[in-house]
């Protein structure tokens, strides 16, 4: 199940948020060896402030098994503020129609104990959840910074992420900036390939009046 947590809803979802920061520490520091800051087993960075949207994949037992973070590109974001060396100046973006997705990860320990499709299902759920929220907000593209391993996983579930420039070495990790278009067809394709039968967000997610239509 997808749970959206916006910056101003973090306290109300403190348990899920804490699990997310622990998952990020396990994945990015312990497993992938990224140079991220971990304190008390939780990974945070300066972009984890109030102007965020978190997309969480949560099990029936309320366990966070996947996550990503969304920032508006009109304000501070990773591609412009941390990884600007990754892309030519011309590909820099400030647009109200483009969101940035970062800190995308899946709990592979959880996924590997289950069916072989579980990794795809969680990944697809996250991408579709992100896409559905973006489309409902009038957003047209998602930019992202990721490593090559992630790129393969994304492409496998039908997310046609494209590089904006060749990958570069960041602390021993081949890192790349990419983008994909979001619209209803893209979300539907991702869901189909990753074995999800319906949209990850209820039609009423953004408006209780949706039910009346």
């Amino acid at each position: 199940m997808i749970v959206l947590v916006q910056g101003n809803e973090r306290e109300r979802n403190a348990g899920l948020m804490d699990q997310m920061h622990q998952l990020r520490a396990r994945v990015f520091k312990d497993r992938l060896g990224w140079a991220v800051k971990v304190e008390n087993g939780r990974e945070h960075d300066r972009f984890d402030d109030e102007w965020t949207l978190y997309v969480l994949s949560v099990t029936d037992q309320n366990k966070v098994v996947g996550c990503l973070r969304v920032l508006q590109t009109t304000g501070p974001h990773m591609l412009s503020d941390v990884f600007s060396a990754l892309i030519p100046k011309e590909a820099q973006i400030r647009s109200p129609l483009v969101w940035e997705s970062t800190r995308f990860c899946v709990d592979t320990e959880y996924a590997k104990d289950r069916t072989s499709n579980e990794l795809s299902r969680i990944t697809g759920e996250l991408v579709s959840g992100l896409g559905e929220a973006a489309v409902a907000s009038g957003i047209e593209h998602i930019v992202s910074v990721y490593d090559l391993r992630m790129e393969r996983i994304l492409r496998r579930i039908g997310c046609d992420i494209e590089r904006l420039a060749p990958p570069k070495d960041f602390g021993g990790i081949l890192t790349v900036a990419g983008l994909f278009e979001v619209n209803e067809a893209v979300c539907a394709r991702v869901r189909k390939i990753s074995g999800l039968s319906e949209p990850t967000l209820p039609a009423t997610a953004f408006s209780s009046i949706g039910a009346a239509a």
Partner: protein
Amino acid sequence: MLKNLFYELADNAAAITSRGEGDAYLAKTARQYGLTNITYLGINIPVVGLEHGVYATTTYSHDWQARYASKDYLRIDPVIQRGLRRIIPLDWSEVDRSPRPVAQFFGEAQEFGVGLQGLTFPMRGLHGETALFSINSNLSNVEWLKFRREYMRDFQLIAYYFHDNVLNREGFALETRMLSERQKEVLKWAASGKTEWETGTIIGLSARTVKYHLSAAMVSLRAVNKAHAVARAVRLGLI
């Protein structure tokens, strides 16, 4: 018809040079889209002489503005409390109206002519400033849902361009509006009638990446679509 109007509104937004013109622009936009009100609230706007950097402008009636100020509603207004520090636009129907003061606040707002429906676009800029751009309407629930689907993107752009204009006209220069070489290149091919796919084939990019550069150029030019971006780039002598 609205599409043509949208060009004009985007052009007008760039041409606003005073607060009065800004107010007139909001009123005109509201009229053209059949909205009851539009409100812009900037916070921490980096302009000298603004108390707490607050810059507010609205088409709400003077009576409602006076009432709002005298009751100090800024402190309980749930749209401001909930609209800030988020990314997804806030539909006012999401706001829990069960607390008495909130129910009373919305009840009064309607009496003073604020539309039944509301949608607030949160924005975060580069200089620590934030802004809320709110639209109101009296459309039925079903019509409102349709309106949202159709114009969500338009209002993301209108909200952003208006915010940009507020900073700009107060003498606060934003990032350079210069087009990158890549953006000029895709605009030139678009100007000569090439599709995104054709342009991509010519310059060795995918159609989707071409579309992305066009979108970036469009925002840099404060235009509303590809054709508009081309027209502006030509008019400004950039391509």
